[in-house]
């Protein structure tokens, strides 16, 4: 491995993409290149590529034009915030420019497989949360949903609900990352929350929740009870914010 060229970047998403753009431009064979996050240790080897946000953005747009599916995979891969897979991502993007969207089928390539597997997981959690997110109505009439997803899916999730609950004023709050989205009067905003205080619920909220809990219990066929199947479809890590699973 020592004959491979080593490159370093600063650990940010923009830095990663601009490093990939730079390498694809300058290196004849990106398959022979390693890309790592700079740790500033004493004996660290490698050539540092400075972050250039414009370069990062243009890489993404070029990829989207050239291979839209592969660009989507890149986007969902980034939601996973995975560390240590930079070289795989470099190889994936380089192959996507040569082969187009077909690259996603090149699963015998270890780099491609890494990226596709991780992005598939992020995609699955995003899809799951579209169903499992629970809003509560607050006293001022707005709705609030809290979540602790493994992947950083706040943005695509908020876009999903901006097309769905359009006439409603709502907040999405990622408790672990302290980030939030707010939809009001047709505009979507993102931000961080330093100090979160649980607001008071509206008067009718407990009543509606009780109805949902009742429905949840009665809709199951008693002769077909199957808690294992229930847990495999709806892992317990999501139960914390599920209205129907409170008190279990």
């Amino acid at each position, binding site marked *: 491995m020592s004959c491979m060229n080593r490159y370093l970047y600063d650990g940010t998403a923009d830095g990663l993409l601009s490093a990939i753009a730079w390498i694809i431009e300058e290196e004849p064979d990106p398959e022979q290149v390693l890309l790592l996050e700079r740790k500033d240790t004493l004996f660290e080897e490698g050539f540092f590529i400075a972050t250039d946000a414009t370069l990062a953005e243009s890489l993404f747009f070029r990829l989207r034009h050239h291979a839209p599916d592969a660009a989507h995979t890149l986007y969902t891969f980034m939601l996973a915030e995975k560390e240590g897979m930079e070289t795989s991502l470099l190889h994936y993007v380089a192959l996507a420019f040569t082969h187009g969207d*077909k690259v996603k089928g090149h699963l015998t390539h270890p780099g491609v497989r890494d990226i596709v597997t991780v992005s598939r997981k992020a995609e699955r959690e995003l899809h799951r949360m579209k169903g499992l997110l629970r809003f509560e109505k607050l006293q001022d009439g707005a709705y609030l949903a809290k979540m602790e997803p493994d992947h950083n899916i706040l943005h695509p999730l908020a876009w999903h609900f901006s097309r769905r609950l359009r*006439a409603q004023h709502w907040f999405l709050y990622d408790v672990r990352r302290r980030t939030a989205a707010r939809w009001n009067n047709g505009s979507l905003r993102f931000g961080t929350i330093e100090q979160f205080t649980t607001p008071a619920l509206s008067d009718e909220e407990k009543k509606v929740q009780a109805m949902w809990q009742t429905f949840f219990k009665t809709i199951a066929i008693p*002769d077909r009870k199957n808690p294992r*199947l229930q847990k495999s479809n709806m892992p317990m890590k999501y139960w914390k914010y599920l209205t129907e699973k409170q008190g279990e």
Partner: protein
Amino acid sequence: MDTLAKLQILSGAARYDASCASSGSRREGPSCGTGNTSLGGICHSWSDDGRCISLLKILLSNECRYDCAYCVNRSSNPGERTSFTAREVVQLTLDFYRRNYIEGLFLSSAVFQSPDHTMERMVRVVETLRTEEHFGGYIHMKIIPGCSSELVQKAGLYADRISVNIELPSAASLQRLAPQKQKHSILEPMALIGREITSSLVERKSSRRAPRFAPAGQSTQMIIGASPENDFQILRLSQGLYKKMNLKRVYYSAYVPVSADNRLPVLAAPPLLREHRLYQADWLLRFYGFSAEEILSDDAPHLDEAFDPKTAWALRHPEFFPVEVSRADYATLLRVPGIGVTSAKRILAARRFSSLTPEGMKKIGVVMKRAKYFITCSGRSFEKPDRPEAFLRQQLLLPGNREAALPAPSRQLVLPGIFA
């Protein structure tokens, strides 16, 4: 009675309806209203029986004047009777939808007064949701057999999916167990819906503003194990429904004993394994290019309990195997036990880049447990070729290869129509 008490009774009465799919329709949400639909469907929760909850599944009323032997709501069954008002259903749907509990409404009903009267009340609910509340979420509506065709047409304009339950796999069983329902009153609206869907699709090709009619198609449901039909009869019926009536889905519902009527068989437990095997065979009909006659025959009219229907077919057709995965086409790959739609597509995609090795097969995620007995990979076989059938049967039944013993109710019920 307050809404909570009604909800308890009328959702309990609706739980034996198998369908919960919310797929097949894509609608933009109205800017002044609530809700849109997503083409692939979304599950919102999973109940204690492991089935997905996607829609608010309720009856408008359980005050039934029919006395179908297999049904929990039959008029001779004691138990509390009640009905929702239209306003209550509308409010519940909106309250649940705004909190993201559900993808939409599944509205069915017992038949009170007359089929027309019942259907009219149901249509009024969805009309209010769509026109007054500007609700854009998913709506699945049951058609009450015997109601007028005008009401069927109206329902199709408001609902995403409509369905008429075929109830039992033959007219004779229907006559015996549900004497107040007639075969023609079930098949007529089905045919009407099929025609309306087709003509709406044609019209929408010339004008995008032409109204949609049940954009997510129609489905039906039958009860398995309450009547004597064999699996071959059932599969041929489903095949006919898919081909001639253009149905999206046929649901099979294992009979859960809900009464001690002497016209019904006495079962220790609902026939879940049989239901599971029927769903597997149904998938073979719809996505794997099999016909009912290939899966079963008059001499062997029942699905094998020990093997899934594809493995059973493979064991009967040794001349078809081994399949060479680096050359076989999609249709051939799909016939290999253990290789499904996903694996077959991945094999095709991976072959473009390099020839497939046995290790490569595992890397791309093909499960070799069953497949290894039926394939070769660039000429190399995984198992000794020409194994006698008896050996294969035994190998496939070894604990590691066996499918999880009983309950595992079909996953088909669980995913709201990834394919539907």
